[in-house]
């Protein structure tokens, strides 16, 4: 099923070297920079999960705030309002997100939505979701939900904040990037790319478009929801304006585009470059010049799209990885 | 009047036309023949400036127009009546004709030219305010030619005017071609229909897979065995 390239990547000393080196960073970095890297890893994970739909099958889904919101707000509400253990909350939220993803994929297929219609409908869903979250007290309403203090109790989905959260995010991000590699090396990835390039032709050669698209959407939604739960645990505060607003999806889409759509490491690269830049700018100048980091994201995106529309990853490969074969070319 | 020398043109770096040279003299009706995929439409689009040539020259009235934009060529009077008519379906016949005379040179002359066109095609006069999309194929062809004439064409290039028309309409359209020829208009007839074109043009070129296989007076082309070969792709 899955081509050898995936297992080669899994066995690659480079990959584990980088991950291990990354895992040691909190030992040497201040808590401030550890925080920034944790946020960057959240976006690496989110952008890579989004990539399964947006990059590989070429459907620009703006509905992903729905999945992040489900993972974050629903699990938080279950914990705060009903006292349900967050591990269970994570599973319930992920299942809900998967179901929502399947519904969206079904609607897309059933009504044969074009690219534009898909963007618009998913945007409408995202807007509706944010209105529901803000208007429904169970999910925290407009004021959000405050989670209990993180005391590091693993059984309560607590990782002690700081380093613990960093390692959780590193693990999640690594897994999701590897899921990307696995999908790209599997029949699913091949089908998705066929669908992206020409859906009618894919159908004509016998690709079950509904099944492939639904699979991709469900995988992406479940992973996104899990990251959402971990993210809200790290933040301790479930802020609907951050976690259930379409703006977060737009950020994700832009990171993925800057890095390289549809490539396994592209979205990760985009998020790793832009998030620390943005967060540092926000930390240093946020008080004096609010919005500067978004402003710069915007400029970077425009410049990248105009200058190298396939993203920065191909550029990086040419610069750094020309000779080595440490990572498969996907 | 219009001269093409050593033209190479195609799409996305792949040449379809190789070393084409042809000439249209003032007042002449010249036929450009060829089977499907021979490169006729690429050639006419190079003349209109839609396709940019990779090599060669196009000279109009002694001026090199090889790099001129489509708009500049329309301004000079090089007018194409495209294959499949391509009328503006949601606009009225009148509006289609007005758009035909859009270029700066033709704009002030539109009322006069409109009268001429409507005299040539009385059918269009009856349908002036009807959306062009509701016309029959033959009527649309009349409109497309009328629209081309509105631009004060100095060279009128008709791409497959007989395509998809009933025999009666084909006859009618070619009657119009004869009449325009009598009025002294220079025309390039791009056609697949061999016998028809040979009857209405003075000289012909036969395209075969991107190059000119046969050229000469209509009679000569008609009797040249290579003409049939080019068509059958032998």
């Amino acid at each position, binding site marked *: 099923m899955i081509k050898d390239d995936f297992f080669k990547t899994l066995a690659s000393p480079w990959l584990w070297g980088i991950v291990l080196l990354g895992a040691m960073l909190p030992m040497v970095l201040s808590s401030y920079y550890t925080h920034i890297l944790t946020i960057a890893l959240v976006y690496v994970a989110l952008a890579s999960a989004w990539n399964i739909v947006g990059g590989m099958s070429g459907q620009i889904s703006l509905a992903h705030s729905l999945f992040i919101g489900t993972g974050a707000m629903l699990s938080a509400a279950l914990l705060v309002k009903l006292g349900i253990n967050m591990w269970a909350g994570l599973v319930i939220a992920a299942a809900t997100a998967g179901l929502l993803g399947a519904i969206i994929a079904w609607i897309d297929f059933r009504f044969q*939505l074009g690219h534009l219609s898909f963007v618009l409908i998913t945007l409408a869903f995202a807007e*509706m979701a944010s209105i529901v979250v803000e208007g429904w007290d169970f999910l925290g309403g407009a004021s959000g939900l405050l989670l209990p203090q993180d005391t590091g109790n693993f059984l309560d989905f607590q990782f002690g904040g700081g380093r613990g959260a960093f390692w959780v995010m590193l693990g999640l991000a690594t897994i999701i990037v590897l899921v990307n590699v696995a999908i790209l090396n599997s029949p699913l990835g091949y089908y998705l790319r066929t669908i992206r390039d020409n859906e009618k032709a894919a159908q004509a050669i016998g690709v079950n478009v509904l099944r492939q698209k639904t699979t991709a959407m469900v995988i992406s939604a479940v992973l996104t929801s899990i990251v959402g739960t971990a993210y809200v645990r790290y933040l301790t505060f479930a802020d609907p304006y951050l976690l259930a607003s379409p703006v977060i999806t737009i950020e994700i889409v832009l990171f993925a585009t800057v890095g390289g759509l549809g490539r396994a490491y592209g979205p990760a690269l985009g998020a790793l470059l832009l998030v620390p830049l943005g967060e540092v700018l926000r930390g240093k100048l946020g008080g004096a010049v609010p919005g500067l980091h978004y*402003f710069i994201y915007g400029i*970077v995106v425009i410049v990248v*799209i105009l200058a190298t529309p396939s993203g920065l990853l191909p550029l990086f490969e040419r610069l750094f990885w020309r000779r080595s074969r440490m990572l498969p070319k996907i | 009047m219009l001269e093409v020398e050593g033209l190479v043109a195609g799409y996305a770096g792949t040449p379809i036309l190789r070393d084409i040279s042809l000439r249209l003299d003032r007042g002449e009706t010249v036929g450009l023949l060829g089977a499907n995929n021979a490169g006729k439409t690429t050639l006419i689009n190079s003349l209109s400036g839609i396709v940019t040539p990779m090599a060669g020259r196009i000279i109009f009235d002694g001026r090199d127009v090889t790099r001129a934009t489509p708009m500049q060529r329309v301004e000079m009077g090089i007018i194409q009546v495209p294959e499949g008519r*391509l*009328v503006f379906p949601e606009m009225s016949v009148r509006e289609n004709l007005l758009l035909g005379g859009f270029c700066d040179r033709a704009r002030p002359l539109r009322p006069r030219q409109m009268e001429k066109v409507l005299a040539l095609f009385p059918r269009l006069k009856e349908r002036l305010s009807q*959306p062009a999309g509701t016309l029959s194929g033959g009527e649309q062809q009349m409109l497309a030619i009328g629209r081309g004439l509105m631009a004060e064409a100095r060279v009128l290039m008709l791409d497959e005017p007989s395509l998809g028309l009933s025999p009666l309409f084909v006859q009618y359209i070619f009657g119009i071609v004869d009449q325009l020829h009598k009025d002294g208009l220079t025309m390039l007839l791009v056609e697949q229909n061999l016998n028809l074109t040979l009857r209405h043009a003075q000289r012909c070129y036969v395209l075969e897979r991107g190059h000119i296989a046969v050229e000469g007076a209509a009679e000569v082309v008609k009797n040249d065995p290579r003409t049939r070969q080019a068509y059958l792709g032998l």
Partner: protein
Amino acid sequence: MSELWQALAQGVFIGSTYGLLALGMGLVYGVSGVVNFAHGDFISLAMFMCLALFSAFSLDPYVSVLITIPVMTAIGALVYRFLLRPMVGYKFLMVVQLTLGLSLVLQNGILMIFGGQPARTPSIVESKLIILGDVVLRLAHVIACAVAFAMAIGLYVMLRSTDFGRSIRAVHQNAHAAALMGIDVGRVQVMTFALGIGILAVAAALLLPGTPIQPTQGLQYTVITLLVVVLGGMTNFVGIMLGGLVIGISEAMGTVYVSDTLGRLVPYAIFVLIMLFRPQGLTWRAS
């Protein structure tokens, strides 16, 4: 009963301005296939320009418009020429992403200059009311409605009976044939985009009196505009104005008759249903 009339009137007045916002987007989509996700941020930009002109010279928005129209039009032309035109031939989605990037730049550029606090631009008409029986109308809304319809009619006449208008429609219906008519398709696209952005300067001034503005509002305006354009069938002129009214009225009705949250959901629900079951929009077309 009076509540119904009140909501209806308010819906019509706001809706007509929405229609005007959407006409610009519909024109641009029809001519160049670009769906501009920064549309709402251009509205923001025009509104904040009015605010700046008020702060600096105490100009009423209705006067500022004389300055913002040419400035917005010029910005529109430059944006199309240097950012969107190079994208011709790219995948549609890349253009969407580019305009999303543009949206971030505009929104946060405004935020950096004006700060994030909600602001108001005073106008002489702000507090004037017109009372018709039970129905109380704000003068600003009446003016907005009248100007929006006048502009819509003006645009319609322009599209129907001027050479520029016909060239816009020609490019929309068949860009290749339009080029053969000697129409400079690229120039028409630039000018249409500039026109679409220029219209926003007017719409911004109409919406301003009594409306608090903040830099982050852009996306909401973009979404409303998209709703209206889709309801109208993307490029159908009458349909778009009608779509504006439908959204305006459903929004007003929703907030009056159903709870606030549900009321805000109504337009989106309508939008999704229309997208799914009538993708050609509300109006019927002779095909």
